[in-house]
């Protein structure tokens, strides 16, 4: 009998981890590229807000000078960070949908039976989703620039590390949600109960002081919303400023949601009726 050679044990080197990360990012990118509808929707959604909603509200909504802005800004300029957040929020939820889809289609089993640690695989998944969101954000910013939205040039660069933190944080929320969703059909609830409240109860469309003028309760809900801090983190970075409060709350939210998602992730979920033989 010929014995097969023992497969190499790849414990000590870093390269298998990097190859694995690259493979997961590559697959996510390929899937995104192939899903033209998702690609177009990801761009059209914020552009509609920018071109239609912002144009309408420009006249109606007066904004006083608010940090990080040093002067009055047009409403179109004000909502850019919120729309960037919206892209990442939708992308994070889309990643959660894709996790549920992968679980239903069985490809999650292939991921989870890799010899690498499960927590690492889940972080790679998050990074892959985040990379896709970065592409979407920069295409959106390029279009915004083309239609005359003026932002500090260096702000585009300073934004990149912030987008990684905010993208991971929103992706981690999506991953945590996916641990509670048993079937793909249940995903519509996420739209109604997560995306819309998170977006509207934030500083994406109006500054928090404006919200406080109308309702103290709504103000506090907005102030406690992690998405608000992500948007503010993005807003300050775009203007080459750093808000310790926004960065701190966003990073803390990332740690909490990521930890909870890894802890709650149960590959057994979705096996009901498929494999109890």
């Amino acid at each position, binding site marked *: 009998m010929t*014995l097969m050679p023992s497969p190499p044990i790849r414990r000590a080197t870093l390269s298998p981890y990097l190859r694995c990360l690259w*493979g997961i990012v590559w697959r996510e990118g390929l899937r995104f590229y192939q899903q033209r509808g998702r690609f177009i929707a990801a761009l059209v959604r914020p552009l509609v807000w920018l071109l239609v909603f912002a144009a309408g509200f420009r006249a109606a909504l007066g904004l006083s000078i608010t940090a990080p802005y040093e002067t009055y800004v047009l409403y179109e300029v004000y909502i850019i960070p919120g729309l960037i957040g919206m892209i990442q929020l939708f992308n994070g939820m889309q990643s959660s949908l894709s996790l549920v889809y992968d679980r239903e289609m069985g490809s999650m*089993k292939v991921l989870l039976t890799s*010899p690498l640690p499960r927590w690492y695989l889940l972080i790679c998944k998050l990074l892959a989703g985040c990379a896709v969101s970065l592409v979407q954000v920069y295409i959106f910013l390029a279009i915004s620039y083309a239609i005359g939205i003026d932002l500090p040039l260096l702000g585009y660069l300073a934004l990149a590390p912030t987008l990684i933190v905010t993208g991971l944080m929103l992706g981690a929320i999506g991953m945590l949600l996916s641990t509670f969703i048993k079937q793909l059909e249940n995903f519509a609830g996420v739209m109604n109960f997560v995306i819309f409240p998170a977006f509207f109860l934030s500083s994406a469309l109006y500054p928090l002081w404006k919200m406080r003028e109308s309702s103290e309760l709504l103000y506090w809900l907005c102030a406690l919303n992690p998405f608000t801090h992500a948007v503010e983190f993005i807003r300050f970075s775009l203007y080459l400023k750093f808000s310790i409060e926004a960065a701190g709350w966003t990073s803390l939210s990332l740690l909490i949601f990521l930890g909870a998602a890894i802890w709650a992730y149960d590959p057994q979920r979705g096996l009901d009726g*498929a494999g*109890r*033989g």
Partner: protein
Amino acid sequence: MALTENEAAAGIQISDLSYAYGAKKALDNLSFTVKTGRFTALLGPNGAGKSTLYHLLTRIMKLQAGQIEIFGSDLNRSSLTAMTSMGIVFQQQTLDLDLTVRQNLRYFAALHGLPHRGLEDQISNRLSSLDMLERADEKVRALNGGHRRRVEIARALLHEPKLLLLDEPTVGLDVPSRKAIVSYIHKQCQERGLTALWATHLVDEVLPEDDLILLHRGSIRAQGCVADLLKKHNCDDVAALFETLVLAEPVE
């Protein structure tokens, strides 16, 4: 060739393994060994506990009681070593339908940290050995069930595992496809020393020279070399053995 300590160990060693879904016992105190370099059939009717066992072997489900060792490495404590030596073909198809055959294999290679150098040749060789090279650049969605299974087997063997776990891999396939797949895995065991655990409820997939574990209602009814078991139970073939040990039992 001298055997190393790990190679001399059993391919799979299962001790006192139990699993329950709530109050319903799926596996009841199983203990068995899968010998290195052998084709071992895990035969049992639907609901016998085969898939539960596979989900425990692949760490999809967590152990409740008992121990699993893969080539001497405890699956819980040395999971990296254990999982590296394992290739898996799940009952449910697990290919990404929107990627090509080659892209699916590349993705798998990345998940296992395989180096890029020589990978394309490795993929081509593996696909070629399963007569799938010509379809390498087609999307999986375009393949029929039999061809998808071949791709899954090619993928499971890409990192040259010592152990291959297959959970009812021929379900839903036509007779020629089934025969081709069964024969391919047997050949891998004979020529390359692959250890295979093949779960099935189809008695014609088990050959007299194979090892057999007969599972029913979560417990083992018989285990050993098929030829020896046939002799012991005075049966002409595996179908008769299956009937004697499983089907003759009253329904609960």
